[in-house]
């Protein structure tokens, strides 16, 4: 599609319209807020809902292992439900990304793609460790409990801490640190309670991030 004529073709009249300072301030704030909302890759409401869904998934995993002696791991029905949840969450994320990034270009967008690759690689980190533990004959408590519950929080969280620090994205930095800390605690809570602790840590991190972005955007609009 022909996006535009070039700017040299310009022509018509100025729409004019004198602004008083109050009107200018209102227009600035309204336009900035709306633009930030439209460009956001992590809309606060969607992010907060995802935090609740993640918490529900981890609680379901925890309930499915509660009272197991010996520990054998979450049941397949719950694992399937979690995968469906992850698939739906990913689809929502892709849709939000496409809408926010429509028509946006430049070096920062390329950097975002590189960050996406780094994130995908780190997501694969914990299952690889899990596979190695299984290969060496580690117990089910480790292979199907502590490591899959806490590992992703530590590996992915650490990646997010680094990414956030490089962009000075302090809401993400704080949220990712909380997730890593929660993962560290979950490692020592045993195979059953590790799921619950990990779920709570993720919920706190994700909802905290949503709140942090609201605060940051409000501050930026007022600046």
């Amino acid at each position, binding site marked *: *599609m*022909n*996006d*535009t*004529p*070039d*700017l*040299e*073709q*310009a*022509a*018509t*009249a*100025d*729409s*004019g*319209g004198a*602004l*008083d*300072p*109050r009107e*200018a*301030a209102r*227009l*600035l704030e309204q*336009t*900035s807020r*709306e*633009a*930030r909302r*439209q*460009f956001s890759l992590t809309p606060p409401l969607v992010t907060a809902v995802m935090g609740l869904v993640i918490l529900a998934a981890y609680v379901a995993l925890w309930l499915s292992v509660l009272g197991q002696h010996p520990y054998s791991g979450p049941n397949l029905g719950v694992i399937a439900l979690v995968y469906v949840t992850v698939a739906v969450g990913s689809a929502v994320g892709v849709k939000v990304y496409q809408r926010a990034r*429509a*028509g*946006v*270009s*430049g*070096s*920062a*967008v390329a950097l975002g793609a590189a960050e996406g690759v780094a994130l995908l690689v780190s997501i694969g980190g914990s299952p690889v460790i899990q596979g190695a533990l299984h290969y060496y004959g580690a117990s089910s408590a480790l292979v199907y409990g502590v490591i899959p519950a806490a590992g992703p929080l530590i590996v992915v969280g650490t990646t997010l801490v680094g990414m956030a620090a490089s962009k000075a994205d302090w809401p993400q930095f704080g949220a990712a640190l909380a997730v890593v800390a929660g993962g560290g605690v979950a490692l020592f809570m045993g195979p059953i309670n590790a799921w619950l602790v990990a779920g709570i840590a993720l919920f706190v991190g994700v909802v905290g991030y949503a709140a942090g972005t609201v605060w940051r955007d409000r501050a930026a609009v007022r*600046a």
Partner: protein
Amino acid sequence: MTAEVLDPLIHEQARLRILATLAALPEGVALSFTRLQDMLELTPGNLITHLRKLEDVGYLTSKKTGNGTASRTSIGLTVRGRAALDTYKAAVRRLLGGL
């Protein structure tokens, strides 16, 4: 009094909205003409006129890629444009503080 303090190139409804929208993106990021037009709900002719004025003073850059039906124009805020908007915001705040 207002006209003496506020940058007249920015102190216009459409141009103020153009700059505020582009300033919501990180530095080094541009926006397509079509998306900008959709967001601001301006006619192409009106938007072009304002963009040209802002580009002439170095507040914006535009880059056209492709030819014919595949052409695409991207608009980006320059460092000078971002600084001018910051100065404008500060001036508005001072004026409101004095009211």
